[in-house]
């Protein structure tokens, strides 16, 4: 069986699956249950200064569901811990002592003053936890008070606070980033400049889940009024994956350890983030949807995958996909695929034809010799993949790379050597002009 152990900034855990700083890690009872279930570590729900904050007693969560109420996206307006600091610290210390092999990272959020950060770091250190995560991510509530994403949206603040923290503690410092920015590389670079040991991302995305069309108010609402919350869950995974990739391949932040967060629900999601360079993954929504037991699927699935591929440790495949992420301008313009429909698998729903006809390149038939039949017209197919993504049958439509012969659409030979936009004759800024 593959070795799932991770060592992230010297923080050891038996597997890469950590619970993110959130309601599941709010208190001893939850965290102990999580460790019993097999989670490799937790980031304790964000601590703040006393007097502790209060939460609304109206709804805190909203969701987007599929037709069978499968939860696709979750949104919350819960704030940081609403318990006294001392109680949290006592519990953290107790749990860490009882579960020494698990990662115990503590999330923190205090006002942007050096003394405030110095003070709380000193107290947290006494818990003998493994590290701290600076919550510069929460987009709701706390951001109105100049904390959370209000800090994460200003690279200078990130750098400043990270630097204070590194000066005031010997513990590893992870900076948790907000996705509510225009370019994730800037806050990541700032964290690195400030001396942070790692970044974790993404925190939640500012969101209003829906509008209650009877009440004519945002849903969910508190006594008739709503506010934006933080969006997470399976729906945000692609956004998180891109941001992780951007940081992993940025020249200035390359090599900066990343703890990935964002819609991780299955072993496969986790493996994808690790392949993109993440050292550990953090999970919240999946646990809040199904409970802690899901980690068993994650552990066994990842282990099975690694055994099949011959990866002995997480490090064996970590970051392997990252170098394959590039800019559009470097994509091979001479690479040609054509859709192919497996007529044995085709159930003749005709959606491929309908969408290609209405919204793409009119490259799929609906009738052949007067009979209902869906075939790709190579002379029209641009290889866009739309038909394959809308097809309800797995593997019925595949995109087949073309290697020999002539493309009936363009008249060009297949298999021409790699060439990209930077040298294309249509590119006014091409480095090499067309002959």
């Amino acid at each position, binding site marked *: 069986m593959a070795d799932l152990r991770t060592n992230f900034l010297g923080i050891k855990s038996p597997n890469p699956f950590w619970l993110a700083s959130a309601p599941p890690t709010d208190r001893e009872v939850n965290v102990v249950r999580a460790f019993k279930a097999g989670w490799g570590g937790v980031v304790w729900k964000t601590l703040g200064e006393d007097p502790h904050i209060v939460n609304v007693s109206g709804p805190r969560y909203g969701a987007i569901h*599929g*037709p*069978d*109420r499968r939860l696709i996206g979750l949104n919350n307006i819960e704030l940081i811990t609403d318990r006294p600091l001392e109680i949290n610290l006592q519990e953290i210390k107790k749990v860490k002592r009882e579960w020494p092999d698990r990662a115990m990272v503590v999330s923190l959020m205090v006002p942007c003053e050096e003394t405030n950060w110095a003070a709380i770091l000193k107290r947290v250190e006494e818990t003998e936890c493994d590290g701290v995560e600076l919550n510069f991510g929460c987009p709701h509530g706390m951001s109105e008070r100049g904390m959370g994403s209000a800090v994460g949206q200003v690279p200078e603040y990130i750098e400043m606070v990270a630097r204070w923290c590194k000066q005031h503690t010997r513990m590893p410092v992870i900076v948790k980033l907000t996705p509510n920015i225009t370019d994730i590389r800037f806050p990541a670079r700032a964290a690195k400049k400030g001396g942070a040991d790692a970044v974790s991302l993404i925190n939640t995305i500012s969101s209003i889940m829906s509008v209650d069309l009877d009440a004519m108010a945002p849903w969910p609402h508190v006594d008739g009024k709503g506010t934006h919350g933080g969006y997470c869950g399976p729906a945000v995974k692609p956004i998180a994956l891109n941001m992780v990739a951007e940081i992993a391949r940025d020249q200035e932040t390359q090599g900066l350890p990343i703890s990935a967060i964002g819609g991780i629900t299955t072993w496969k999601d986790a493996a994808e983030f690790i392949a993109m360079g993440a050292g550990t993954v953090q999970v919240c929504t999946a646990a809040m949807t199904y409970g802690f037991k899901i980690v068993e699927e994650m552990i066994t699935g990842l282990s099975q995958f690694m055994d099949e591929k011959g990866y002995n440790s997480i490090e064996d495949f970590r970051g392997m996909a990252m170098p394959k992420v590039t800019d559009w301008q470097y994509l091979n313009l001479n690479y040609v695929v054509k859709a192919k429909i497996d007529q044995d698998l085709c*159930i*003749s*729903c*005709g*959606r491929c*034809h*309908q969408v290609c006809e209405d919204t793409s390149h009119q490259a799929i038939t*609906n009738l052949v010799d007067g009979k*209902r039949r869906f075939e790709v017209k190579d002379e029209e197919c641009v290889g866009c993949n739309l038909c394959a993504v809308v097809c*309800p*049958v797995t593997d019925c439509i595949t995109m087949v790379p073309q290697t020999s012969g002539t493309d009936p659409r363009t008249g060009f030979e297949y298999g021409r050597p790699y060439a990209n936009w930077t040298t294309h004759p249509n590119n006014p800024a091409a480095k090499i002009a067309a002959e």
Partner: protein
Amino acid sequence: MTGSVRAEGIVEGRLGKDEYDANFSDIHPLLSRHEAFVESDRCYFCHDAPCQKACPTSIDIPLFIRQIANSNEIGAAETILNANILGGMCARVCPTETLCEEACVREHSEGKPVKIGLLQRHATDALLDAGKQPFRRAEPTGKKVAVIGGGPAGLACAHKLAEFGHSVTIFEAKHVLGGLNEFGIAAYKSTENFAQREVDFVLSIGGIETKTVQSLGVDFEIGQLRREYDAVFVGTGLSAVNKLGLSGEDDLTGVIDAVDYISKLRQSKDLSKLPVGRNVVVIGGGMTAIDIAVQSKKLGAEHVTVVYRRGQDQMKASAYEQHLAQMSGVALLTWARPSELIGDKGKLTAVRFAETAENAGQLVDAGGTFTLPADMVFTAIGQLFVADGVGGAQPLALSGGRIVVDQERKTSVSGVWAGGDCVAGGQDLTVSAVEDGKQAAFSIHRALSV
């Protein structure tokens, strides 16, 4: 006195009240709102959808399912009713397994079609429960159309004509409208007086006058209506039944026409007062045979056997109906024809059968015989069109005993259209009768708009 399933002879009250209620409750498990969401998500929203093509009334099935999926049941119902004004009844009685659901691409891919019939019912029930008439009459045109027969074909024709603004008069031989919806189909498919609720819904568009207990050939002739109205639609259905042609058929107690009995059953206010035999034999292989067999069983008959002269796969009753019968405890016996009705003191006691076989496509006796004890035998071997009143100076052309119509449902006589079971070449389905009525209405409207 309350009988039991083992009581000899034809007796009433074989069951307790709760059993009657349970046996004749709605056969369809209704979809809850959540189930409807989940089921509607299974629809692929196919291009040029095969289900829609398989529907005789061409209901835009993918659209109405998508409307259900997005909480618009009323809009879904309007989509359905726009193509098929009796979409509520069709959701209950259509053999969907040989129509839309057979064509569903999921039937081909996984053997589990989208439950189109149940979804249609979900939507149409919502609209009828809401008491809405989504269609509005156009300005009155001053044209008058006579519709003969208030069954599915006549109702569909009348509604569409009324929508166009024409004034419609329905002539109905019975005391209420509905035709087979009211008198024919199995009670457990149309519960809680649904047929009449639907009739009321159809008529609520306005512009439709009804004249009941008016029989073609008895109270009026087509020629007369042609003079008084701008157009005539004939949708009389089939009002006679085929006979066994066996001695004793007309005088032995216990030999009963299934159509007639089902009609009594449908009109019965108290099923415990409806007598049924202990040993019931049904002759036939169509929907009526299955309907009477299952209902006899549900009325408390101990043994019910359907005997059909050919094989099970040649029965006109769908596989679903056959399965339903077998699940209800009805025995299906094939390759046998009744050869003798055996009686004692004027009462049927048994039926003798000759075994049959197929020889070069011809049905022949195979030589053997057997006898089934029977205190009741139901004949369900097909119905006949009664051509009374369609003759006269300009008779309607008939083929195989039924009225000949063209694509537009025009008969051979100008100004006269026809549809439903009374026309030649039909499918004898409620849904095709509705389509006939609808198409005839379009054609009549075109003719009257010139």
